[in-house]
């Protein structure tokens, strides 16, 4: 009798919670903040460009006016630093890169805590559980969820199948194969740049980190910088040698605009760049039929691709965080991420990745299938460690970039370059 009463009570409480949940969902009203204006600080990259093509849809759905301030990435951060240091409410929502500044901004208290918002004020079809757990974890600091993922991305190799065929090169299966392929292409066709990737100092840690992890290296060991460990030195040597011996002239100034332009123009055989450069690389259609895409092949450390995602978040100083959250959840909803997916922005949701419309878009071109297959590897095996896992991550990237550039320009030996970097980074670590 007591057991039956307990079971009944238990069932009643379950039903009550369920009813409360569906009552909350049923209560959800997109027009709740109609008439308000939300200020959005965006980074001008393919992700925001894809999102903002649907800006009018958001405004029509909610009645909220969206004011957008768009800058190039570095200028966006500078504006953000100015606004946040002043504790200003002029920005309600901004884009953020947790792998770069997440720890820093979280420690500075610049992110609103999105955890309660994801529970209390969310549309019934939002599907929070469908978001990539890895990306949500990467955006969580001290138990607080600080941003919602907008995309999933990482560096992949775009390579020319026709040049490989002409030069008798097979698809690389290891990092050593990548170098061997570059060597063969150089001998076969000197007019083509065999390999291009980032050489610009602040930008190269993004691509270098994949080499480091695949070759079994690690930025920190025992709380100290480990760039002079054997595996880290091997990674520095390999990455810089690929760019120095097989990269284009002037590679030390190359970041994604120059790299994508070179590959799209047909002047490079292998391009190791971000997966969301797909749209840029395929612009004009010249590379649609002669490009294959793979993640960076395994090294001694296996295959540990760099996997990051841009996030969108609410400012801790916003005077209307709830209205701002409406924009954030709309921007990261399954429906909107589906629309962005067919513009080449890889979705951080498996439901969208398996959506029939998206799959149809993927199946239209073989290169898109390969792109998705590479992204599946990134999603399954990736790490979001780009640069040192410390609060001063952006400053740590300077030392990594300087070490690689010293080697590309033959200004220092590997031992000298790594020692100088270790010294600088250990000083940075000890400041904390």
């Amino acid at each position, binding site marked *: 009798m007591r057991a039956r009463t307990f079971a009944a009570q238990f069932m009643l409480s379950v039903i009550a919670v369920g009813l409360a949940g569906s009552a909350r969902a049923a209560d959800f009203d997109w027009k709740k903040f109609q008439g308000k204006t939300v200020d959005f600080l965006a980074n001008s990259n393919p992700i925001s460009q894809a999102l903002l093509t649907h800006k009018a849809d958001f405004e029509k759905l909610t009645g909220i006016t969206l004011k957008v301030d768009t800058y190039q990435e*570095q200028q966006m*951060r*500078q504006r953000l*630093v100015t606004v946040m*240091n002043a504790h200003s409410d002029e920005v309600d929502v901004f884009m953020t890169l947790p792998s770069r500044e997440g720890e*820093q901004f979280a*420690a*500075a*208290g610049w992110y609103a805590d999105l955890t309660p918002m994801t529970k209390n004020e969310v549309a019934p079809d939002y599907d929070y559980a469908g978001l990539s757990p890895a990306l949500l974890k990467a955006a969580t600091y001290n138990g607080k969820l600080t941003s919602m993922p907008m995309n999933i991305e990482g560096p992949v190799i775009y390579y020319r199948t026709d040049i490989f065929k002409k030069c008798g090169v097979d698809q690389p299966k290891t990092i050593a194969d990548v170098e061997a392929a570059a060597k063969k292409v150089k001998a076969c066709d000197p007019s083509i*740049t065999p390999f291009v990737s980032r050489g*610009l*100092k*602040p930008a190269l840690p993004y691509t270098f980190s994949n080499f480091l992890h695949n070759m079994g290296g690690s930025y920190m060991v025992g709380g100290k910088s480990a760039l002079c460990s054997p595996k880290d030195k091997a990674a520095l040597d390999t990455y810089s040698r690929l760019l120095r011996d097989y990269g*284009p*002239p*002037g*590679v*030390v*100034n190359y970041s994604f605009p*120059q790299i994508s*332009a*070179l590959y799209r*123009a047909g*002047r490079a055989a292998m391009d190791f760049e971000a997966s969301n450069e797909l749209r840029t690389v395929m612009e004009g259609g010249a590379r649609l039929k002669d490009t294959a895409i793979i993640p960076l092949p395994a090294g001694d450390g296996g295959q540990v691709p760099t996997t990051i995602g841009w996030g969108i978040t609410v400012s801790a100083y916003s005077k209307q965080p709830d209205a701002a959250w409406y924009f954030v959840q709309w921007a990261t909803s399954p429906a909107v991420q589906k629309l962005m997916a067919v513009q080449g922005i890889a979705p951080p949701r498996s439901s969208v990745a398996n959506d029939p419309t998206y799959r149809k878009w993927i199946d239209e071109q073989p290169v898109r299938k390969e792109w998705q297959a590479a992204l599946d590897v990134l999603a399954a095996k990736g790490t979001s460690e780009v640069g040192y896992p410390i*609060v*001063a991550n*952006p*400053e740590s990237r*300077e030392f990594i970039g*300087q070490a690689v*550039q*010293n080697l590309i*320009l033959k*200004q220092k030996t590997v031992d000298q370059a790594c020692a100088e970097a270790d010294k600088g980074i250990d000083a940075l670590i000890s*400041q*904390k």
Partner: protein
Amino acid sequence: MAEAADTTAQDRQRQELAALSAPAVIFTVAMIAFPLVYTVWLSFQSFSATGRESVVGFANYARLISDNEFWHGLWVTLVLYVSSLVLQLVFGVWLALVLFHSRRLSGVVRSLFISPFMMPPVVAGLMWLVILDPSLGAANYILTSLGLPPSDWLASPTFVIPTVALIDTWQWTPYVALIVLGGLQSLPPSVYEAAQIDGASGFKTFRRITLPLLLPTIVTATILRSVDLLRFFDIIYITTQGGPGDASNTLNIYGFRVGFEFFNIGYASALMLTLTAIVLGAVLAFNRLRGAVVW
């Protein structure tokens, strides 16, 4: 009595003028003084990547002295300043003479000559970044077509400073030329008539008459360009971001990165105030020189 009444009326007029212009003066002083005072205050603070920490007195300035990057940045700034200034003054005077003497040049040609300095520095930087790309740029294409070896231009630690100096010279020579042209047009024709009567050659006329008389104008142009060149930023930020390595890392670029990328606002403020002091020192020095050469 009449004089006393006049003096009172003048005093009243002066007071009225002061009262009317006071809001504008107060606003201007506030807009200049407040940021400066606030930056000085910031330079005595320490900031970490997560925000303001504490008052540290002169520690940021002491750090400057032992910071190799500061001295390197200062060296790059001075090399760029001297090379760019010399080129712009020489070519600026030459262009001014061309524009002054070639009265038959059409307005279109004149406009083309002076158009570079009307271009925003960001646009100029992006344009030259594309032209000087070692793989895809027109510059190397032209060089190789002429049988000459290509260059790494902005990607070469050796050539990056001369290349940036040339880009800045391309953009700002017309500005110097316009200032010097104004000076040329104000020179008294009587000295040239006297020189002609005395049978002086063109070169002697230029060396003994035109150049000395133009000195005040040239010094004015030097002052105006010095303020910009010592704060060299736009072209470098767009094209190299201080690279390759730190070969083009001027003081302004370094301070900007310390402040806005590493969030060390305190040290960045100290760096920028030091640069401001250098610029002010240069302006004061050239002002004294101007006083010495005025005729």
